C-alpha cells in the first residue's frame, strides 16, 4: 500500500458494503433470468420436480424445438415487432407535435387542453365504456385499432411538454428571426434539442407495446393478429388446466413449464439487445424532463 492512501478505513468499509449490497441486488434481478434460461433447456420432469435451481438438468432442447417449429409462435412474434415498431412511430407522430403545441404560450385555450389531458391520468371511463367506444369506432379486431387506440398517453405528453417548455426562449426567438415557422421550428430546433426526452418517450412506448397484453386479448379475434404476450398467456393457461389428465406429459422431455420458459427466453432477446443502447438516454431524459427553469 502506498502512503498516499486517499481512502480512510471507513470509506473502504463503506465501499465494500456498497459493493456487497449492489451485488445482492444484481443477483436478485439476475436470478430469474438464469432460472428461466436453465429451465428452458432442462427436461420437463426435472423442472416440475424441483431439481432445477441454478444449473440446467438433463439438458435438452426439446422445448425450443417445439416452440420454434410452431407457426403461430412466429406469427405472433412478427406481430409483436409490427405493433412495437409501428405503434411507437404512431405514438411519436402524435405525441411530439401535441406536446409542442401544448408548450407554446400562444396556443388558445392552452390551460384547458392541459387540464383535460392531465385529467385522464387520474380518471378514466373504465373498461366497458372504452370497449364500447372502440366498437362504435369500428376498431375491434383490427391492427389499426391496436395502433391508434393506445398511441397516446397523458404521461408521455406531459413529460415532453415540460421538456419543450424548458428550452430557453432565445432559441425560438432566434429561429423566428431567421424566418422559421412553427413546423421548421419544431423540426429543426426543438426535436434536435430534445433527443434525450424523445428517446425516453420512445422507450416508454416500446416497452408498453412489447408488453401489451390485455387489450390485445380483448380486442383481437383472429390468431393472425395476436402479439406474443397473448400467445404466451394461452400456453400458460394450458399449463394450468392440469388436474385430471395432465400427467401424460411427465414422460416427454418437455413440459408446459419448459415451453413457457423457452418462449420467455426467445421473447426477451430483442429487449436485451436494444435496452443497453437506449438506457443511457433514458436516464438523462427522465432527469431533464423533470426540471423546469
Amino acid at each position, binding site marked *: 500500500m502506498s502512503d498516499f492512501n486517499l481512502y480512510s478505513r471507513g470509506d473502504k468499509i463503506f465501499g465494500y458494503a456498497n459493493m456487497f449490497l449492489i451485488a445482492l441486488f444484481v443477483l436478485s434481478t439476475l436470478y430469474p433470468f438464469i432460472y428461466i434460461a436453465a429451465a428452458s433447456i432442462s427436461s420437463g420432469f426435472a423442472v416440475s420436480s424441483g431439481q432445477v435451481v441454478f444449473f440446467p438438468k438433463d439438458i435438452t432442447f426439446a422445448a425450443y424445438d417445439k416452440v420454434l*417449429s410452431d407457426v403461430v409462435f412466429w406469427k405472433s412474434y412478427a406481430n409483436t415487432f409490427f405493433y412495437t415498431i409501428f405503434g411507437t412511430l404512431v405514438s411519436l407522430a402524435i405525441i411530439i407535435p401535441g406536446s409542442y403545441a401544448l408548450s407554446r404560450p400562444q396556443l388558445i385555450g392552452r390551460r384547458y387542453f392541459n387540464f383535460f389531458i392531465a385529467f385522464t391520468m387520474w380518471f378514466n371511463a373504465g373498461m366497458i365504456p372504452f*370497449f364500447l367506444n372502440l366498437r362504435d369506432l369500428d376498431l375491434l379486431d383490427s391492427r389499426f385499432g391496436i395502433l391508434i387506440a393506445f398511441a397516446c398517453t397523458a404521461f408521455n405528453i406531459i413529460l415532453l411538454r415540460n421538456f419543450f417548455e424548458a428550452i430557453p426562449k432565445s432559441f425560438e426567438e432566434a429561429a423566428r428571426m431567421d424566418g422559421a415557422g412553427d413546423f421548421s421550428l419544431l423540426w429543426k430546433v426543438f426535436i434536435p434539442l430534445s433527443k434525450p426526452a424523445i428517446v425516453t418517450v420512445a422507450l416508454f412506448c416500446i416497452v408498453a407495446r412489447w408488453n401489451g397484453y390485455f387489450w390485445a*386479448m380483448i380486442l383481437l*379475434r383472429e390468431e393472425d393478429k395476436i402479439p406474443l404476450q397473448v400467445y404466451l398467456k*394461452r400456453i400458460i393457461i394450458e399449463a394450468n388446466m392440469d388436474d*385430471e*389428465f395432465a400427467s401424460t406429459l411427465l414422460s416427454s422431455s418437455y413440459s408446459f413449464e419448459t415451453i413457457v420458459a423457452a418462449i420467455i427466453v426467445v421473447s426477451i432477446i430483442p429487449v436485451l439487445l436494444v435496452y443497453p443502447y437506449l438506457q443511457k438516454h433514458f436516464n438523462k431524459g427522465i432527469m431533464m424532463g423533470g426540471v423546469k427553469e
Partner: protein
Amino acid sequence: MINKILPSTAIALALAATSGASVAAGDDDKYKVTDKPLELSIHMHFRNKYAWDENWPVAEEYEKYTGVRLKGVASKIGTNSQELFNLMLVSGNLPDIVGGNSLKDSFIQYGMEGAFLPLNDMIDTYAPNIKAYFEKNPDIKKAITAPDGNIYHMAYFPDGQAARAYYIRQDWLSKLGLEQPETVDELYEVLKAFRDRDPNGNGKQDEVPAFFRHWEEMIRMVTLWDARTTGTDSYHQFYIEGHDKVKHGYVDETYRTGIRNLAKWYKEGLIDKEVFTRGSKAREYLLGNNLGGMTHDWFASTAGYNDSLKETIPGFDWIPMAPPASPSGVRMEENGRTTVKPDGWALTYSNKDPIASIKYMDFIFTEKGRNIANFGVEGVHWNMVDGKPTYTQEVLTDSQPVNSQMWSIGAQIPIGFRQDYNYEWQWTNEIAAKGIELYTDNNYIIEQFNGVSMTVAERLVYDKYWPGILTYMLEAQQRWILGSADVDEEWDNYIARIKKLGYDKVLKAYQSAYDRQYK
C-alpha cells in the same frame, strides 16, 4: 405445437368434406331440423381458451345431420372466457346462442331479466329426447331450473361417479410388512411407519407420509371421522343432510373431532409440513423424489405416475386403496362427479329461429348426436364395435391425451349434452380402472349435491354474509391445523362468532332455495 391441429383432425376435415354426399338420403334427413340450410351465430368461449369453431369436425357433423350451421363469433384468441361473456352481453349485439363453462348463474340471472328464452314449453313441444331424459331424471331437471320455474339453459350432464381417491405406496407397505389400512387407526399406524422406518431406503428420515396438491384435500380427511367438508364437487360448499336439510360441514361436532386429529397428525409430521404452500407441484416433487407415501387425488392422473416413474424408482407401485373406515365404521369417499355441471348453452331473446335451435339441441340428445358429442366423427375417430362406440387406434395411441384431442375437434365440450363415461373408460389406466371399480362397486362415493339457484333476495343475503363467514372458517381451520391454536379451546367461541356473522340467515336463504327447487 400445442394448438396445432392434430393429424387426425386434418383427416377428419378432408373426410367431412367428402362424406356429406355419401350418406344415404333417408338417414340424412331423419334429423333435419329445417327445410333449407340455416346459419345461426353462437358465442361460446370456454375454459379460458377454446372458442366455438364451425370448422370443427364435430360441428360439421352436427351441421350435416341437422342442416343448421352454428357460426362461432367469440374471439378465438381470448384467454378469459368470463370477460368475453361480459363484453358480449354489454356490447348489445347478442348472437343466437350463447354457451360456455361456469355460466349457470349468469344464464339464470340474465334469463330472468329477459336476455335468454325460457325453454320449458319449447322442450315439451319440439324436443322429445330432452323431454324423455328429464322425465327419467327429474332431479336433474330441478337442478337447472331457475327460481321462477323456467329453464334457461341446457346443461352439460357428466357421466361416471369416480373423481378422486386415496392412493398409497403399495411397495412401501410390502417392504415394511404392512397391510393396507382398513380403518383410520390403522392408517395412523401406517403413516407413522412410513415416517419412522425409512421405506425409501436412503437411510434418512425424509419421507413425507401424507401429502396433497391442494390443502383442501388434506382438510377433506376429516371425512375419516365422519365429518363433511362440502356437498358438491367444489370445496367448502353446503351439503344435504338426510334428504332435505341443508348444512355446512364446518360447524359439525364431527368436524371438530376430525380437525383435532388432523392437527395431531400434522404436529407429528404425518402430514406434509408444507401442505398449505407446496401447491400443484407436490405430486411431481414428492413422488418423483421417492418421498411421498399417500395422497388423495384424481384417479386417472395419479395412476399415471406408475408409468412415468417405473424406470427411475425400481418397484414403484402406487395404487388406489379403499377409504379407511371411520371409528363408527363408515367408509366414505366425499368427492365424486356431479350429475350436472354449471356449463351449457342458452338461446338469446334475439334468436332468429328458436324452434330450429331447440331441435338442434335435441339432436345432441339422440343416440346419434350423443355419440358425436362424446366421441367425434364416426369412421374417423371411432367405430361401432359390439354396439359400443370405440375409439380408433390412432386416437388411443396419439401422444396427446384423448380428452385434449376431443376438445380440439369440438367433442366433450361444455355444451348441453350427456356425457358417456365409456369415452373415458377406454383410455383409463388399468390401475385407475381397478380402483374405480373398487370405489363404485362398494358404493364408497357419496351422492353429490347439484347446488341451488337463488332468487334475488336470497342471493343478496348469501352474498352479504357468506364470504365473511367462510373466510373466518378457513382462517380458524388453518390456525388449528398449524397448531397455533387448539380447536377444543376455541370451538365454542368459533361457533358463537359464526352465528354472529350471520350463519343462520345464510342457512335460511339456502334452505328456502333448496326447498323451492327440490321438494
